[in-house]
């Protein structure tokens, strides 16, 4: 079986992230990491592969050239191979274009099961996996808090506010997973060295036959971007007459906080 995991490479969540007011994109100079939710998706695939010989896990990333180190980390964790789609035409790509690219790349790579995160930490669109499934005409099980992969079927549980929904679909299918999945493993020395020898194919839009500027398709276009206004000073309650508690309670009530 071939499982393809969609891993987005995002600005380091531990570092400060800034939005460029010129491009509307997150500045990516401060260091990139494989999105943690993508690592969790990878963990689910690797756990299955560990227990089922003949399963091959492949990582697919659409992202800037600097994403290589993060893709190598995925290989060091245990993925067998990877595809990296990188192209200047994809800078600032919207969900629609990204989904088109991911779907085309999946067609090229081949898959029995596609595992994605439910939502990226930076774009937070939360719909890419469903869009990809739509392009490929595949069943789509989204927001799974537990996944069970079998020979010809994938199933799982989606936890909603008031219910847990059991879902299943025949393979091939697309699933997206939530943070409820187990923590991802992390590589070791040997994984890093082995990763250097694993195939990592870098392809461009031309390789996929996609025209990023094709205006016959609808695209979302950013018209304006603004920084969040700085926070106001806030209200300070000082206790100079022993009545501060009352005023604090009044303030909280006024703002519907109690």
């Amino acid at each position, binding site marked *: 079986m071939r499982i393809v995991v969609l891993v987005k490479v995002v600005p380091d969540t531990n570092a400060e992230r800034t939005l460029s007011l010129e491009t509307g994109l997150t500045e990516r100079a401060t260091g990139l990491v494989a999105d943690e939710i993508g690592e969790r998706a990878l963990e689910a695939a690797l756990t299955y592969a560990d227990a089922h010989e003949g399963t091959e896990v492949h990582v697919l990333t659409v992202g800037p050239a600097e994403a290589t*180190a993060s893709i*190598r*980390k995925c290989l*060091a964790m245990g993925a067998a191979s990877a595809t990296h789609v990188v192209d200047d035409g994809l800078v600032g790509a919207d969900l629609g274009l990204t989904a088109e690219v991911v779907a085309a790349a999946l067609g090229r790579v081949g898959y029995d099961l596609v595992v994605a995160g439910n939502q990226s930490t930076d774009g937070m669109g939360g719909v890419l996996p469903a869009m990809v499934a739509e392009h490929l005409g595949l069943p789509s099980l989204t927001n799974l808090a537990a996944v069970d992969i079998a020979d010809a079927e994938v199933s799982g549980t989606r936890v909603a506010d008031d219910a847990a929904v059991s879902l299943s679909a025949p393979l091939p299918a697309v699933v997206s997973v939530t943070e409820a999945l187990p923590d991802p493993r*992390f*590589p*070791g*020395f*040997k994984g*890093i*060295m082995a990763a*250097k020898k694993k195939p990592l194919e870098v392809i461009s839009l031309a390789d996929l036959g996609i025209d990023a500027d094709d205006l016959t398709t609808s695209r979302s276009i950013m018209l304006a971007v603004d920084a969040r206004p700085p926070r106001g000073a806030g209200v300070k309650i000082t206790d100079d007459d022993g009545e501060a508690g009352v005023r604090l309670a009044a303030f909280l009530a006024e703002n519907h906080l109690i």
Partner: protein
Amino acid sequence: MQRDIYDEDHEAFREVVKEFVKRYVTPEKARQWDADGEVDRATMKAAAEHGIVGLSVPEEFGGAGMLMDYRFRSVVNEELIRSGHGSALAGAAGIQDDLAVPYLAHFGTDAQKAKWLPKMATAEVLGALAMTEPGAGSDLRGVRTTAKKVDGGYVVNGAKTFISSGKTADIVVTFVKTGEGNRPDAFSLLILEDGMEGFEHGKKLHKMGFPGHDTAELSFSDVFVPDENLIGGVEGRGFVHLMMNLPLERLSIGAVAAAVGEAALEWTLDYTTNREAFGKQVVDFQNTRFRLAEMATTVDVMWAYIDRAMNLYRKGELSADEAAKVKFWCTEREWEILDQGVQLHGGYGYILEYPIARAFLDARVHRIYGGTNEVMREIVARSITGRK
């Protein structure tokens, strides 16, 4: 100053060590090690699983094959120490990879390598190196532990002290007298195995620093050690073997000192930035700024020196006297930086909750073990004057 000895593999490995620290080297874990006086075996094994321990074991025996390249080891030191909770683990890892494994990997017979190294790569077997005795430290050739030849092996009598990892180790590479007098060929290295009859661990030593890493007394009364445990299988090579691994041992202490210096600078910068006095941040007093500038510069020079030594070591060209210079010079700079760091922390610098205070106490032994700094100066002086 930007260091240039690391490539992308080292940086990828650094991320591994950082992640390991995040998951395994927690403040609670460090407290546990301190209370137990040793690092738990499960953590050692987990570290080995990620290649953080076992770096110097040759690849054919399941290790990383980095015996002649200290860079990955230095990355381990740097990240464990920086965390402020990892010094005991750094110490335990260092004993395994810098002091125990090399004697087997360099000088062991094929059978010894095949028997011990695969298990040392996984930390299923931990090693220690026992040279020092109650009556002989600097003067190594004054050791009195004897190994008398008998049929099929040796009978060992004597005692060792201050042996790092001496309690947790499964095998102890032990420096013994197999001949008469104190000529270099009167000594051998024997592998003593935990559990051998007559091999006892003495009382736990209460140290000034490194509370989480065991240091033990060992005693031997009529311990029978089979021939197969004679390192290299040839008698009389013990002293030469020790001399050959000294550059690595001294480089490792110097590299740890530089890592501690760098961490101390980071902790101090962080602390003084968050501490206020007289209405301003402590970091903004001119004295603080000058001291921090000195610390930062010293750290840079230490790394420049260590990095150069690491490069020489990779080429097999780091001599014993060059390594002696590195050891004494770096551990003394480390001491100055820590003293300054403690000072800039004020009273909190004296409180063991703060990593700077612990590092200060830990570091004191760096000028003593691995050959005292006086002995290091003797070695350097000998190399430049040609006189004993």
